[in-house]
């Protein structure tokens, strides 16, 4: 099975609110000092899913693609160190500040240039914009089904059996291949790259493609966004907290219970 995994590099989603700043005029996030970008937390799970499917089949190839600045190589390297076979970096000025609809177009074009894939795996969402539209977009463009928020994936005849996470439980579905599947955190811990694999990864090929290589230069660029960013800001939160005093935890608890009762909250 030929599997493509899409991985994205994002600002650390656990950046403390105090270090998170936005340039409201430019409508951009100011990178937090000393906090390095990370691989989108769901994407190693997508890589893990690909590797497990390849291992179960005993053959196949796992290619990782990332669209982003040159630093996005680190996200590719991480997947290669986990065991993926090859990487593709999509980069260039045309991709700066594009929206997720353009991102899906670029990734789909790259998958087509690779000769297609039996399965495309993505994370359930990129934890920066958190839209969860890219996997559905790739599927729509490639004309294949999309199964989102997967918790477990297994080969099932010529297709796949996928367990999905719903709001109030789980759903098992069966999809033919080729397909796009987005993977959720419930999938389980991804493997941790070992030193030997990290060294092996350094020797694996990472191709670099620009918008012209993909024949999509005319559709990229900020001016071709389908979603227009009107404003980006940090919401104001005022603190009006009343710290409940008391000499002992028991006294604090008593004071809280009384306050809550007085306010008719209990």
């Amino acid at each position, binding site marked *: 099975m030929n599997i493509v995994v899409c991985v994205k590099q994002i600002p650390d989603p656990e950046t403390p609110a105090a270090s998170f700043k936005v340039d409201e005029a430019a409508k951009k996030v100011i990178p937090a000092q000393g906090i390095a970008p990370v691989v989108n937390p769901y994407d190693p799970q997508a890589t893990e899913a690909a590797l497990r499917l390849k291992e179960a089949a005993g053959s196949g190839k796992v290619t990782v693609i990332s669209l982003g600045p040159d630093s996005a190589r680190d996200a590719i390297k991480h997947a290669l160190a986990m065991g993926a076979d090859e990487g593709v970096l999509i980069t260039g000025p045309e991709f700066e500040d594009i929206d997720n609809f353009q991102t899906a177009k670029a990734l789909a074009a790259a998958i087509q240039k690779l000769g297609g894939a039996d399965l495309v795996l993505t994370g359930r969402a990129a934890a*920066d914009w958190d839209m969860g539209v890219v996997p559905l977009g790739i599927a729509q463009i490639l004309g294949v089904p999309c199964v989102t928020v997967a918790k477990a994936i297994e080969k099932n005849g010529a297709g796949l059996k996928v367990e999905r996470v719903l*709001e109030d439980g789980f759903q098992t579905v069966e999809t033919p291949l080729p397909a796009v599947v987005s993977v959720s955190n419930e999938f389980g811990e991804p493997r941790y790259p070992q030193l030997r694999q990290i060294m092996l990864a350094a020797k694996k090929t990472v191709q670099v493609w620009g918008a012209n290589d993909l024949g999509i230069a005319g559709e990229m660029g900020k001016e071709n966004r*389908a979603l227009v960013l*009107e404003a980006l800001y940090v919401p104001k939160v005022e603190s009006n907290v009343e*710290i409940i005093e008391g000499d002992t935890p028991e006294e604090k608890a008593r004071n*809280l219970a009384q306050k809550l009762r007085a306010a008719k909250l209990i």
Partner: protein
Amino acid sequence: MAGILVIAEANEGALAPISGELLGAARKLAGEGAGSVTAFIAGSEALGKELIALGADAAIVDTNPALQGALAEVYLPAVQAALQQSGADIVLMGQTALGRDLGPMLAFALGTAVSMETVDLKYAGGKLIATRACYGGNARAEVSFKNAPAIATVKAKSFDALAPDASRSGSVSTIDVAGEARVKVLGVQKAESTGIRLEDAPVVVSGGRGLGDPSGFKMLEELAALLKGATGASRAACDLGWYPPSQQVGLTGKVVSPNLYIAVAISGASQHMAGMAGSKNIVAINKDPDANMVKAAKYAIIDDYKKVVPALIEEIKKLG
């Protein structure tokens, strides 16, 4: 082309709460000049009448049985047909298992865009502006749409439903359209829920990683039961296997807005706040006075929960 199409949803034949909330949002936009409101629903004509009472000017009911329990790809042509019939240039749906797939699918099929997990909407200067959280809740983005229709999936509890008004009138028409199911549903497994549903509970007591071990949740369940509430958890606690993921509150979990939210040993990361910031009253029990949850709370106790929670249970019992 003008107007709003609302994709309503029903569970086991009854309208889902999001349907009323979406109509509440649509009526607000209609008041701002966005045009009339058409509601789409899969099911029976009776549901169409209920949607009119909740604020729709017209309803389109798709009676095709294949839509029941179906995935978004089966809905896609049905929604496209309703869009055409209504002439709407704005489409609203819920950020639900259906909407989170259908929104992007529809956007890509029509060459337009979608705002996901939208928390606010306005119609100004002839266009729809959608507000949503990004960067894990640290930032808000306001987006508009270059092409039509503008599509937004709306996060639960972002808008209030209107009280049903049976005297409202509007046409209910039926269609019979469904797409092909390439993906087959083999089965659904409901998470076993004990007691009140988290999303509906007037009181929620949630625990985090600071509980130290799963046994802490026993204490929280006792407190929740005493207050006739439900028990929730942070993702850190769920990922550790201390509590079921169906009880997770936050960006990737449930959205709750109870009258009282008691956060025990939860730091208040933006992704957790995204699921409970709409709570009317927040109480934080935390060792750390600088924890974000403490800042967001109305009342806070700075101490070890292991001593505070049992004492709180006793005090509440005494108050009767």
